[in-house]
């Protein structure tokens, strides 16, 4: 039964969604939107599951003493801090004990990770006491400090200056840097890959040079190069992309049918 019920549900809802698309009735639309709401609800539960999974994986890394395991502390403290900034905002001019609260909560998370990672019972007790003490202290600070407050239902937290500072000055440069590093690897890869080894490689080389030259005002005959490049993008590229899109679409239909009919069961795991 553990396998039959999910297969049955997948079959019923899969068939329903296929036919619903062709039935523009009000009730059919209502059921469709109701099911879409469920997708969002399930997505939000998956978010909680994801955070728990991240915590477990991080703790496991520390437990096994893997290289770079200490970065797991930064991962989880960073995750917590952004969440905390997003749900809190100052109510007056000063911050009061806000940063102490952040520190206490961060220390509590580190203690919890150490508690989960410890195998020795004495150390476990010590980390449990530390976690409990830090949690109580953090709760007391949150209750008695009036300089800031929680905003769980309204987006005041997004205007928290700490949230903005961390997002604008830490997250944005980090992600932009990661993306920018591609320029170095692309240059290195272009040097090694674009070589006229045979006819097909020569065509690839020519196409790459034309498309790159399109951006360049110094190239002689820039207008002709731009026209040739536009033709490459609008004709051969378009034809190939359309073929790929249609191929992917047919592939999706085939895979969906296999899942609905219970032929493809990979999504069930080993269970």
């Amino acid at each position, binding site marked *: 039964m553990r396998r039959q019920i999910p297969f049955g549900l997948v079959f019923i809802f899969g068939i329903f969604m296929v036919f619903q698309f062709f039935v523009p009735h009000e009730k059919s*639309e209502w059921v*469709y*939107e109701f099911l*879409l*709401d469920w*997708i*969002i609800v399930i*997505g*939000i539960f998956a*978010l909680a599951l994801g955070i728990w999974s991240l915590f477990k994986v991080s703790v496991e890394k520390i437990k096994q003493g893997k290289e770079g395991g200490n970065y797991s502390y930064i991962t989880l403290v960073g995750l917590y801090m952004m969440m905390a900034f997003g749900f809190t905002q100052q109510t007056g001019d000063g911050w009061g004990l806000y940063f102490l609260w952040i520190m206490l909560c961060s220390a509590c998370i580190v203690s919890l990770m150490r508690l989960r990672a410890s195998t020795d019972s004495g150390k476990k007790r010590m980390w449990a006491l530390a976690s409990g003490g830090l949690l109580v202290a953090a709760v007391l600070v949150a209750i008695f400090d009036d300089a800031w407050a929680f905003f769980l*239902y*309204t*987006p005041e937290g*997004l205007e928290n200056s700490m949230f*903005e500072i961390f*997002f*604008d000055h830490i*997250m*944005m440069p*980090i*992600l*932009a840097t*990661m*993306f*920018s590093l591609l*320029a*170095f690897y*692309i*240059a*290195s890869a*272009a*040097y*090694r890959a*674009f*070589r*006229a*080894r045979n006819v097909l490689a020569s065509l690839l*080389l020519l196409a*790459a*040079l034309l498309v*790159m*030259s399109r*951006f*360049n*005002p*110094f190239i002689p005959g820039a207008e002709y190069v*731009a026209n040739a490049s*536009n033709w490459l*993008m*609008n004709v051969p*590229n*378009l034809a190939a*992309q*359309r073929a790929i*899109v249609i191929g992917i679409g047919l592939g999706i239909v085939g895979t969906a049918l296999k899942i609905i009919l219970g032929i493809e069961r990979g999504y069930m795991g080993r269970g």
Partner: protein
Amino acid sequence: MAHLGVIISMLVIFGGLAWLLFRSIKGREVERRVIFVFIFVAVAAPILFPITFEEHASPVVKGLFDHIDTLPPGSRVLISFDYDPAMAPEVQPMANAISFHCLDRGHKVVFMSLWATGQTLLFNTLEDVIRPEFPDLIDGVDFISTGYKAGNEGVLNVIVSDFKKMFPTDVNGVPLDSVPIFDEINSCADFDLIVALGGGRPGPKEWVLFVGDPADVPIGVGVAAVVAPQLYPYYPRQIIGMLGGVKGAAEYESELAHRHERFKNMAQPGLKMMGPQTLAHIVIICFIVIGNVAFFRSRRRKGN
């Protein structure tokens, strides 16, 4: 001083490349580290000593520009910020320019995001462009931000028939039923134009599949350069115009500066970024040539 800097940088870069070409004629390969150094100098030099080029809008960029320009004032435009900080250097200049253009033309603009990180970037556009440039425009009357909504394609599937069901309030918690801009907007079909900015999933492609086609609303897109070729199959029927990467942003800014005097005095990050990008492309093209010279020389040697 800036000119001297540009000249010295060019001499260093192209002198070095000429030396590498000379080495490659002898059949020597270039080390990866050397390529990295050249790319670094090619990108850093135009940032330190700015080089700008004149840009002209290509037909694919002009498609979106002209559509926004010819819509009658008061038209309803939806702009979705579906990207993260990694894509922001390429896409944020487009977002700022398109938002400015729409509001300058007197359109009513609704901002939203399908990415959690997009909401903060949307907030940056509001703070950096809209509030300083249009202090007289009223939030809720001339423009509004509905913020981020989780659910990816699910959100699109709902707002295509009922916008307020998925976004009952704006980002500040004000009910959409009470804001004038939403008086005549019930679903995505009520918009005159949708601009999808991004490059990941959900992104412009999902807007075309789940909203543009079913609701028959014109869609314009602004995407990271790597994604642009994948969207050509939808142009020009399902996508009226497309801005691809920094080049697309620069072309749009250039067209905006030509036709809207006010924009000339504003920051034009897309045009500024074309300097480093152009020089980096020249260096890459030179390295491809050097690589081929070294390849043919080494093949001839092996043949002998």
